[in-house]
């Protein structure tokens, strides 16, 4: 467990030094929101139906950027081999990467959400629920995304392959998170069904990923 923290700390330290990934994720997320606003016109009638979708498209697309780099950056000086030579379980590498990816996602989201609220003029009456949904959705996304990021790292055209294989798998996360976010924004709080799906999704994929990860990064 402590080894996972060390791996995550190493990733984040290196990331915060350049902020390359974080900046591009942030700007990309903001761009998605702005471009959708342009595409739908300044005052679309059904904004309440569109807004949650826009938010989650921004999260997942920006998250995809981070995930794609997560293992690719380890390839640069052969660091992935160096990491695999360390006397730790493969699952510790997975956990470490999950942690660093989650932190990056959370930071991106903490900046994107206020901008989103201002641009679309929402007042959040129940920030706790919103935070809970964003957290669960992000975790589900990162659990699967980190595994598939490792899967594509040694593959031809990995930049193209990762979105193609990741999006169909995270359909349940996107659907549930968008539905729940929509309900929260419109003031209804009946989001139990979505929370159950997101929770189950996260738990199942986390366990499966831990079991299966060693097959993914074997050479």
């Amino acid at each position: 467990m402590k080894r996972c923290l060390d791996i995550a700390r190493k990733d984040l330290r290196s990331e915060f030094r350049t902020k390359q990934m974080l900046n591009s994720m942030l700007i990309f997320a903001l761009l998605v929101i702005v471009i959708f606003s342009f595409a739908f016109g300044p005052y679309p009638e059904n904004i309440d139906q569109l807004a949650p979708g826009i938010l989650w498209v921004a999260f997942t697309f920006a998250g995809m950027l981070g995930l794609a780099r997560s293992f690719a950056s380890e390839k640069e000086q052969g660091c992935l081999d160096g990491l695999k030579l360390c006397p730790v379980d493969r699952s510790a590498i997975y956990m470490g990467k999950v942690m660093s990816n989650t932190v990056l996602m959370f930071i991106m989201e903490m900046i994107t959400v206020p901008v989103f609220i201002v641009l679309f003029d929402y007042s959040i009456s129940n920030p706790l629920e919103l935070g809970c949904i964003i957290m669960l959705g992000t975790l589900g996304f990162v659990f699967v995304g980190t595994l598939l990021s490792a899967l594509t790292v040694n593959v031809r055209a990995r930049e193209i392959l990762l979105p193609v294989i990741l999006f169909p798998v995270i359909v349940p996360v996107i659907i549930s998170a968008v539905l729940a976010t929509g309900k929260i924004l419109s003031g209804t709080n009946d989001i139990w069904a979505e929370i159950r799906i997101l929770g189950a999704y996260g738990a199942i994929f986390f366990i499966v990923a831990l079991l299966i990860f060693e097959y993914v990064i074997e050479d």
Partner: protein
Amino acid sequence: MIKKVLPRITLVTMVIAIYMIFSPASAIYGPAGEVLGASFRIFYFHVPLAWVSYLAFFIVFVSSVSYLRTKEQRWDVFASSSAEIGVIFCGLVLITGPIWAKSVWGVYWLWDPQLTCALILWLLYAAYLMVRSSVQEPERKARLAAVYGIIAFIGVPLSHFSVRIWATLHPAVVRGGQIGGYPVYVLLINILAFTLLYAYLFLTKVSIEEMSEEIQHLKRQV
């Protein structure tokens, strides 16, 4: 033995099944008891196709798990063969579905839960085939594909739940026609016929793969 008998049984069952679909007795009745148009008979193809795609993807899952456990190449052959057939059958579901939908609801595509799930399945296993085609080295291809074959299938039930919640936001959809009596038998015969067709295609694909493996082996020896 099975390679000789299976195609014949499949052919005979298929002919019987198709004959039954177009027999007058298998007409489908609407909610008010009226006989619905002939286009409704595509339902007899649609449902078995959907069943076979689920079966095929389940076999991909089982083979993938077995491959990771044993690292025996034949499981990988099973998985890839089943996935290819599954994608084709699932594609046919996505073609027959809208044809049916057009005559029931007047539009080709309504985001109804079953069709939406079929679409997600198709995307998942198209992605599975993408994984296979982007890795060259056979051992790694088999291993990564097996991982994705497991991940893809585990997500399916959750996709169903979430799509069902999501679809209730849309105008309620009534599936056309009630079936009972004779049409049920027609449907069952068709499911049997298509399952046999799947088995036949599967065995053929596996033996093609085995032959190409053998050719590679012989090439290596030369």
